[in-house]
């Protein structure tokens, strides 16, 4: 297969890219001078993919919440032991993560890179689940879920998603619940594995001081010897999500020193991926930073009034089928802060965004993107996730450069719609 090169001259970085039959995408970004070599092997399968059907098959599958994350835990085990230990022998550290849309397996090493890569490819392609090991994992994941129950930021966030969405599975915790994972068994894991861990639904990304052609050849050889059959298109099924939010307010009490507040806006402008989605993401993030960021009038007023601290933050999640912004943090008075935010949003929409604020923010966004390329993890975790959304992450700077003030102003009017806004509050329990 032919290697293509994706270049970004401003970044002074190059990616070598090859498609390996039957459809695995492999990317290599050589980084001279780094000791670290970092690789991810990701599946386009996350916590929201609990209903699906494969083209050419009749059966629609509905699996318990938390399966993608459960599978991530179990894939490390095989008949003879577990992959953690084999990476340890090579002096590498391995890990994995699951989010709403992807599962990624990764390692980081300074030595024995090509052996580690082979190990990564092998263990992800060798599922081995037994009744006993599945049962044992329920105790471990149960404690992971319990840990997050005590995490105020996490609870605040998921309570907000529960208020924004009526049916969409993004509102459900990535690990599922103690109840939902109790229904998971090895057959369910195998079914999900066979569907979502097919090479055509996966990507490999390698970054570090490596020989790009050698990496691409090695991955190709590893995949080809397994004689994969082509897989039909996976249709990911989602319940119909109405444009309206589920409820406008949700509260919980936890042992915290002071209240927390998040507000969120549910996106209406959905249904597409690719570069237009990247553009929407960048424009919305810029808009949020201009309205709520540390150089905004609103932020500084709220800070001086003691309503927020310097961790107050606003961000946007851009996906094809669901998107939302999340704004907030810890506060001395959530009711007052809520009122001031609504007032501030109305004022911002009346005034619009100035050319000066837009240009400032563009410089900042450019600097932040460049800075993030110090981190091999940042590159290797993001590039495949954007790739699954049909976005070339290297186009970020170009899209940023082409963005206009009008487009950002349009996001301000369109996205910050008060009738699509929900509010989540955590209040301190009396100790």
């Amino acid at each position, binding site marked *: 297969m032919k290697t293509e090169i994706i270049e970004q001259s*401003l*970044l*002074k970085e190059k990616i070598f890219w090859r498609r390996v039959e039957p459809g695995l995408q492999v990317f290599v970004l050589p980084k001279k*001078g*780094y*000791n*670290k070599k970092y690789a991810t092997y990701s599946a386009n399968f996350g916590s929201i993919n609990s209903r699906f059907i494969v083209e050419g098959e009749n059966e629609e599958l509905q699996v318990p919440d938390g399966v993608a994350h459960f599978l991530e835990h179990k894939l490390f085990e095989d008949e003879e032991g577990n992959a953690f*230990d084999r990476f*340890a*022998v090579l*002096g*590498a*550290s*391995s890990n994995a993560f699951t989010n709403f849309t992807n599962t990624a397996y990764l390692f*980081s*090493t*300074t*030595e024995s890179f090509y052996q580690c890569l082979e190990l990564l490819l092998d263990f992800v392609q060798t599922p081995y689940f037994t009744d006993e090991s599945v049962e*044992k*994992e329920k*105790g*471990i*994941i149960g*404690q*992971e879920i*319990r*840990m997050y*129950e*005590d*995490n*105020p930021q996490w609870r605040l966030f998921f309570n907000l998603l529960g208020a924004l969405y009526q049916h969409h599975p993004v509102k459900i915790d990535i690990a599922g619940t103690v109840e939902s994972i109790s229904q998971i068994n090895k057959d369910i894991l195998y079914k999900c594995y066979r569907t979502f861990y097919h090479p055509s639904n996966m990507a490999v990304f390698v970054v570090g001081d490596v020989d790009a052609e050698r990496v691409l050849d090695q991955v190709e050889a590893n995949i080809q010897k397994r004689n994969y059959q082509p897989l039909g298109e996976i249709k990911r099924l989602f319940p119909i999500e109405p444009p309206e939010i589920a409820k406008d307010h949700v509260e919980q009490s*936890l*042992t*915290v*020193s*002071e209240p927390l507040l998040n507000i969120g806006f549910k996106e209406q402008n959905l249904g597409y991926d690719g570069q237009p989605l990247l553009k929407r993401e960048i424009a919305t993030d810029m808009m949020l930073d201009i309205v709520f*960021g*540390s*150089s905004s*009038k609103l932020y*500084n007023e709220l*800070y*001086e009034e*003691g309503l927020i*601290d*310097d961790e107050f933050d606003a961000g946007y999640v851009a996906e094809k089928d669901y998107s939302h912004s999340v704004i907030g943090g*810890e506060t*001395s008075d959530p009711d007052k802060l809520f009122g001031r935010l609504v007032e501030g949003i109305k004022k911002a929409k009346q005034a619009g965004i100035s050319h000066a604020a837009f240009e*400032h923010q563009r*410089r*900042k*966004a*450019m*600097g*932040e993107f*460049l*800075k993030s390329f*110090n981190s*091999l993890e940042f590159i290797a975790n993001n590039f495949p996730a954007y790739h699954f959304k049909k976005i070339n992450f290297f186009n970020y700077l170009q899209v940023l450069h082409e963005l206009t003030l009008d487009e950002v102003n349009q996001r301000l009017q369109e996205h910050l719609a008060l009738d699509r806004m929900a509010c989540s509050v955590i209040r301190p*329990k009396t100790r």
Partner: protein
Amino acid sequence: MANFHHRRLGNGINIFIHPTAKFKTILVQLIFHRQLCKEEVTQSALLPSILQRGSKNYPTRQKLALSLEELYGTELMSEVIKKGERQLVSYSMDLVHDQYLPGESQLLRKSLEIFNDLLTNPLLEGDAFKADYVKQEKEQHERVIKGIINDKIAYSVERCLQEMCKEEPFSVFKYGTVEQLAQQTPFSLYNFYRQFMQESPADLHIIGDLDVEETFALVEKIFTYKRGKEKVVPPTQVDIQPGEIRYVKEEMDVNQGKLVLGFRTGLRFGDKDYFALLMYNGILGSFPHSKLFQNVREKASLAYYAYSRLEKHKGLMVISSGIEADNYERALEIIRQQVEAMRKGEFSQEDLDNTRSGLRNQFLLEEDSPYAIINRSLDGMLAGQVLGTEELLQQLAAVTREDIVKVAENVKLDTVYFLTNKGGA
């Protein structure tokens, strides 16, 4: 030897320049050293937030934020760090190297000028900081102090160490206390600030694709503020023998219990046996192949996390795990069995090899992070010897099984702390 250039400015600030073409950024970090003591810790921890509210040339947060955005999002951060019985107050600046910004130059100079202005040219009302800013930042700081309970893992570790080191300066919380905070005035804080800037030993690190001579010249021109006689930070007390094991139980409305064990090792970074202790800690609990992860999590399914880590300047080791409150006895038993196994030398050649390669990997990885590079030279200076990667790897390679079993004798359980739900076990 480590790859940096050191010079001392006329006013006594130590400048360290680490030239490397690896990164797209330049990181600047200025670190002030103080003795960790309860009389002054609150003031030292509060100063950075007051200074960042405004200087004479950048009198508001908004003006400052706009100026930093203009410089392509140069980031300004402050941090309070505790290393042994030493409090470090750190200011840092992370900026894009202007070789990646067509048509830009002088970004480092412009950033350093803002940095210096904030630190040495504060906004004043007479002989005091601006009263509004002090009032607001005292409130913000009170939230930081009280906010420790929001992260139950960090809280439980902090509480265990506080209980354990009750009689030692190490028990002082790095952000200070609400009581001390209440006594601060704009006038008293400004006096403290002047003293702090004049007498605290200070190190300025700059790392990036830099010309060493040019950078020294630039820094020399900008950081000219007047300083006085430096106040030496006394050494941390390490050699303390624990008595009877202390058990502390604290109730809180939580879902998951947090079990924390505090140990004394008697060894600090810089001691001849430190690398054996590092290996000991690795085999016991700092990797997924370690005894704690394997036995508490993988075999017994009691926890999602179970690890050990060292406080390398105070000679402590902490084990931490999140469990169901009802499993307290079982988890404690399993953890103590692992520590006992270490003492008896019950670990395999594979445990030894894997841990050594894991640590080797960590040392090499540090060279890829500007923050880790600075932190390593800082740790080295506190220990009296800055080691380069080669030397670290040699020391690591020299550790034998016997060395590890020998240091295991030094590791003594001092305090068992349990954060549990109300009415729990």
